């Protein structure tokens, strides 16, 4: 059945990228920096973004013909995992999703125009969700878009539209859109809503490729979300364990109490499983049909792992856990917001049930 999907391959390039990204994110995204960006308009540091572009990260999964590095989707995983671990927000995922959409469904001219720009650090995003709350990316009314990440920093928005009764993807420059920032539960991220402007044939990606492109976006989004959440789960457990090792009550370091120790271990076991499923998903994500199974399993597990780890982290920090200053809330809010995007764990399991049962 799915035994072969558990195999993990790690290339030297991925191991190297992982080391590089972990060092980079640790250096550029200490918690004080994360906190200071909570009130920043764009939620990320443009200088750090420029460095990421200079490292070539924006071109990882873009072919060399379009000035990318020509690597695989799997090579994005260690980078996003590191970002998740260090709570580093940037438009990396938004831009990557836009690039993959164009790669999957854009015309030759659109691809040639935009991919070299995105590979070198031009910010772009995707607009896929509507106020109906549907996670089915094909269920498009085409009026209002919501949960559009990093729109204000973007030059290009890849959006689903309804055109002559069909769901299509359109490429719309930022200056044609009037957006409003939304208040979302994850304060590290930036989300916007806008009314879809009138589009003409020249804005659209070729009709025949819209469904393929949407499937591609969904797969990549789920893979990268699994990476982000899995990385964050590791960090959240480290954060909790540090507190359990230092805080004293009743004359004891509280980590000695099994009521705290055992659920923390359960969270750790979950997070380790999530990591393994993530690397397996990276290995198999390009397999026709089976890629979706591996990716949805990884995402469902990662969301569950971070939700549980962060929920217990709040509780185990006691009174401090109830304050804004305790980082446990950052992790919990991250998991909650992730669950609202591209489907929560129960949604992925329902899709898996259709694929597996």
């Amino acid at each position: 059945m799915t035994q072969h999907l558990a195999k993990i391959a790690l290339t030297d390039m991925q191991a190297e990228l992982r080391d590089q990204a972990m060092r980079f994110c640790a250096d550029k995204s200490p918690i004080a920096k994360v906190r200071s960006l909570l009130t920043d308009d764009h939620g990320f540091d443009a200088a750090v973004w420029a460095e990421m572009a200079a490292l070539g990260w924006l071109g990882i999964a873009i072919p060399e013909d379009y000035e990318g590095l020509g690597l695989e989707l799997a090579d994005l995983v260690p980078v996003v995992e590191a970002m998740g671990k260090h709570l580093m927000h940037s438009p990396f995922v938004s831009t990557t999703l836009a690039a993959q959409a164009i790669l999957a469904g854009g015309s030759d001219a659109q691809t040639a125009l935009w991919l070299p720009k995105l590979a070198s650090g031009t910010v772009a995003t995707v607009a896929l969700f509507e106020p109906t709350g549907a996670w089915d990316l094909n269920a498009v009314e085409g009026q209002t878009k919501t949960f559009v990440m990093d729109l204000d920093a973007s030059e290009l928005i890849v959006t689903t539209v309804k055109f002559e009764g069909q769901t299509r993807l359109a490429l719309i420059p930022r200056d044609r859109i009037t957006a409003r920032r939304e208040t979302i539960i994850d304060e590290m991220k930036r989300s916007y809503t806008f009314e879809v402007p009138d589009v003409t044939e020249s804005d659209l990606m070729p009709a025949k490729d819209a469904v393929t492109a949407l499937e591609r976006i969904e797969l990549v989004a789920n893979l990268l979300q699994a990476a982000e959440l899995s990385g964050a789960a590791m960090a959240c457990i480290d954060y909790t364990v540090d507190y359990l090792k230092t805080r004293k009550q009743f004359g004891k370091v509280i980590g000695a109490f099994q009521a705290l120790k055992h659920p923390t271990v359960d969270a750790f076991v979950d997070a380790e499983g999530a990591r393994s499923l993530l690397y397996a998903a990276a290995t198999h994500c390009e397999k026709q049909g089976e890629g979706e199974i591996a990716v949805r399993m990884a995402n469902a597990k990662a969301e569950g792992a971070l939700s549980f780890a962060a929920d217990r982290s709040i509780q185990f920090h006691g009174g401090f856990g109830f304050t804004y200053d305790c980082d446990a809330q950052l992790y919990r809010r991250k998991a909650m917001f992730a669950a609202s995007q591209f489907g929560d764990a129960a949604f992925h399991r329902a899709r898996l049930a259709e694929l597996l049962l």
Partner: protein
Amino acid sequence: MISVEEFAKQADAWFAEHTPREVPFMMPLTFMEVGTDEQFDFLRDWQNKVHAAGFLGAHWPEAYGGGGLTQAHQDVATRAMRKNGAPIMLNAIGIGWAGPLILDTGSEDEKRRYLPGILSADDIWCQGFSEPDNGSDLGNAQLKAVKDGDEYVLNGSKIWTTQGNYAKYMILLARTNMDAPNKYAGLSFFLSPMRIPGVETTKIRKLTGEFGFTQTFFTDARISADCLMGEEGEGWKVAMRTLEYERGARKGEAGGYTISQTNPLEVVDLAKRAIRNGKPALEDPVMRDRLVTQMIEAQAMMANRERAKIAPLVSENPFALPVLSKLQFTEYARVTGELALELEGAQSGYYVGERASREDGYWQRSYLNAFSATIGGGTSQIQRNIIGERVLGLPKTK
């Protein structure tokens, strides 16, 4: 030496041909479920056959009954067993605990005396660690071994002795020094005979209603001083070493498996046939969600095993994955058993022996038996202490 590939082919062909398909009794899924003579005789004969064919202990030296090949040879033979759904190996304590210990640290005489019988299942081994009053707190074991000339005199009792009523030898943890500086330092480790005056076993009836374990009573039982393994006072160290073989942290097991893993597909298969509240269980959205949850968990365990082989992906803590696998697997098996009963709906109320039951109460029994693994070998709660303390570095629970 035969190539691993060729050996794998031979093993696959042999198990495909010889694996028994129909037996007139419930096949034990683990070495802890051998409750009748019929089951015992069948499994002893099966292990004997597998060994004679060269697929058990393939990597142990020929002088001790092994095949003189490599670990890789035994690994492919074990895979062939799994692939063909072969019954378990019976002599679990010999294969997984006593055997590797003797092979690693025993004298030449001990190796020749004990190892061949372990592989052939002629000599069944059992384990005497837990006591009625000292289960999870193994280091507090109180069974006394008092030196008297060239003998030790044993008094006390051991519990949860798997196959104790069939065993010829026991690996025994006993207290040789009542005045040691700490509880661990007073312990010694013995390879102790079972069929001697003063040793008696009483069968323990399990929660399933079946048998498989004994309590073992020692009353002035005399064993030769040669039975001591290592030095007096080193018992805890030796016992911990045997646990490492069993938990897979140290290589040396004779191969095969002594617990059949629950295949998640079996539950899916059950869900396809089972009727819950008048409808196929597979149509119930709650059951579907729980099934997929278990499938993801099974997949995570497989992926953990794969990741454990890739050094850069376990660099934070290379021991984390092996240490957590016991907790993860045994709890998974328990929850899967519980889910199976929910899938059965009204039929879950039947039990073994009822003709209206599904597969003669297979899942009812599996679920109840699953606790043997979440309690035995260090309870899930002890496992959480071990992971919390050794992997996460949390302070000890006192």
